[in-house]
C-alpha cells in the first residue's frame, strides 16, 4: 500500500487559494470551516513564500494520541480519519495538532464546539464508501473512486502534490535539482519525522 502524503512546493505556490475553494466545494464544507488554507510567510518581504496547509496525516498522529474517545484511525494508505459519531467535541485534537487541522462548527465556549471536522485526504470516513451518509459527514470519497485529493489535482502550478510519499518526494527532489533551489517540504519534519533531502 502507498503511504499517502501532501507536499507543498512553496516556490511554486502563487496563493491563488484554488485548493481552498476546491476543497470547500467538493465536500460542501460548512461555513467557518477550512479544511485547507494558504498561509503566506514573510508577506511583502524578500523571500516571501506561500504554503498550502491542511491535515498532514502524520505518522503517530498526536490528535489520535490525545483523543479521549479514540475516534481516530489510520487507513491502509496511512490516511488519518476520524468518526464523527464517537467524537465528543472536547477540542483536545485541535490543541495537539501542529498544523491547526481540526476545526469545529462552533466557537467552543462551554464545550459546544460540535463534532470535529478536518481534511480526510478525500477519503471519507468510517461509513461505507461513497454513500450519502458518508458524504454528509465527511464529504466526497475520491480515493475510493481511484482519484487523488482534489486540492492537489486541480492546483494550477502543481505546487501542491498529493500521492505516495516516495513518489511525490522524488518529483520535488527532481524539481529542486533542475531549478537549483527549494524552500523545503513544509511540515514534513513535524509530520513524518523526516524531510526530503536533495
Amino acid at each position: 500500500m502507498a503511504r499517502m502524503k501532501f507536499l507543498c512546493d512553496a516556490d511554486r505556490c502563487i496563493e491563488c487559494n484554488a485548493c481552498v475553494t476546491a476543497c470547500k466545494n467538493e465536500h460542501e464544507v460548512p461555513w467557518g470551516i477550512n479544511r485547507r488554507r494558504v498561509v503566506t510567510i514573510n508577506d511583502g518581504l524578500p523571500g516571501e513564500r506561500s504554503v498550502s496547509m491542511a491535515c498532514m496525516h502524520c505518522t503517530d498522529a498526536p490528535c489520535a494520541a490525545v483523543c479521549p474517545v479514540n475516534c481516530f484511525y489510520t487507513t491502509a494508505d496511512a490516511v488519518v480519519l476520524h468518526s464523527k459519531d464517537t467524537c465528543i467535541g472536547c477540542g483536545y485534537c485541535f490543541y495537539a495538532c501542529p498544523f491547526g487541522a481540526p476545526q469545529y462548527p462552533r466557537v467552543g465556549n462551554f464545550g459546544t464546539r460540535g463534532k470535529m471536522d478536518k481534511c480526510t485526504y478525500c477519503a471519507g470516513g468510517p461509513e461505507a464508501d461513497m454513500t450519502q451518509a458518508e458524504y454528509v459527514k465527511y464529504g466526497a470519497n475520491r480515493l475510493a473512486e481511484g482519484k487523488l485529493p482534489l486540492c492537489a489535482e486541480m492546483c494550477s502550478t502543481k505546487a501542491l502534490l498529493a500521492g505516495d510519499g516516495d513518489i511525490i518526494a522524488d518529483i520535488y527532489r527532481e524539481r529542486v535539482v533542475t531549478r537549483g533551489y527549494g524552500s523545503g517540504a513544509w511540515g514534513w519534519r513535524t509530520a513524518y519525522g523526516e524531510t526530503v533531502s536533495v
Partner: protein
Amino acid sequence: MIKAIMARMPAILAVLVLFAFAAPELSAQQINPTASAVQEEQLMRALQSGEAVSGRVTIVDPRAADLIKPGNKNWAADHGGMVKTINIVAILGILAVLVAFYLIRGKIRIEGGFSGRTIQRFNAIERFGHWLLAATFIVLALTGLNLLFGRALILPLVGEGAFGTISAWGKIAHNYLAWPFMLALVIVFVAWVIHNLPSRTDVEWIKQGGGLFKKGVHPPAKKFNAGQKAIFWSVIIGGVALSWTGVMLLFPEWAGSSSDWQFYQVIHAIVAGVLTAIIIAHIYIGSVGMEGAFDAMGTGQVDENWAREHHSLWVEEVKARENAAPGGAAQPAE
C-alpha cells in the same frame, strides 16, 4: 559625421553612464530567487517552544495564520505521558497505602465503646455543603478520569458506540456540575475556615502522628485536627485551582493563546489526580477506616466517646458552651 557625434558626445556619455548604473539592477532581477527564499528549517530553528511559524491568511479566523506549531506535539506527549503517569501513581499509590494501613492497623475503634450519648458535630448547612461538594466531586473525578483512562479501560468493555455516548454525557455532566461544585466550595470555606486556621495544638498532633499508628494515643484536637486541616486546605486550594483552570478550559477565549489553554489543561489534570488521591484517603478514614466517624457527616451527631478520643478540646468547648447557656442545655430527666 564625426563632428556630429562629437557634438552629441555628452549625451551619448550620459546614456552610457546610465547603462553602467542600470546594468547591476538588471542583473539583480535575474538572481537566483533561492538566495532570499524563506526556509522552513531556519524558521523552525528560530522558534521557541509553543510558538508558531505564522504568516498571513485570507481567512477570517486568525488562528488559521499559524502554519506550524511544533510545540503542540509536546503538549500531546505531556498529556499522554507525564499527566497520565502522575494520575496513575497518585491513585494507585494511595490505594496501596490505604490497603497496607488497613491490614496493619485495622479499623480504628472507639476505645471506650459507644457511650450512647451524642453531640451535634455538623449542622444541616455544613452537611449540605459537604455532600454537595462530595457528590459533584465524585462525578467530576470519574468523568475526568474517563477522559484520561476511559479509552484504555472502558472502551474495550462496552464498544465504540456506547463509549462515545457515555463520554459525551460525561462531558456535559463535567461542564455543568462544575458550577454546583464551585458553590459548595464556597459554602464549605465559609462554614469551616475559622476552625481550620493552624494553631499550636496541631504541632503536638503531628508529633504524635495523630494517634493514627498506635492504639491508645489520642493527641488533643479542637473541632478539626491537623490531618483534617490538611484535607480542608487541600480541598480549598486544589478546588480553587481546578475551578480557575476549569473555567479557562470551558472558555478558551478567556484563556488566551492555545499554549495558555494547554498550560491550564495540564495543571487541571495534575491537580485533579492529586486531589482525587487525597479524597480517596479522606473517604477511607471517614467510612470503613474509623468507627463512629461517618456519623459526623451522616446524621451530624457523633458519639461522645468518639468525640472525646478524637476531638477532646472541642468536646470541652461544646460542654462549656452548653453550661454557660442560660438555663443550660435541656437535659433529659434521669
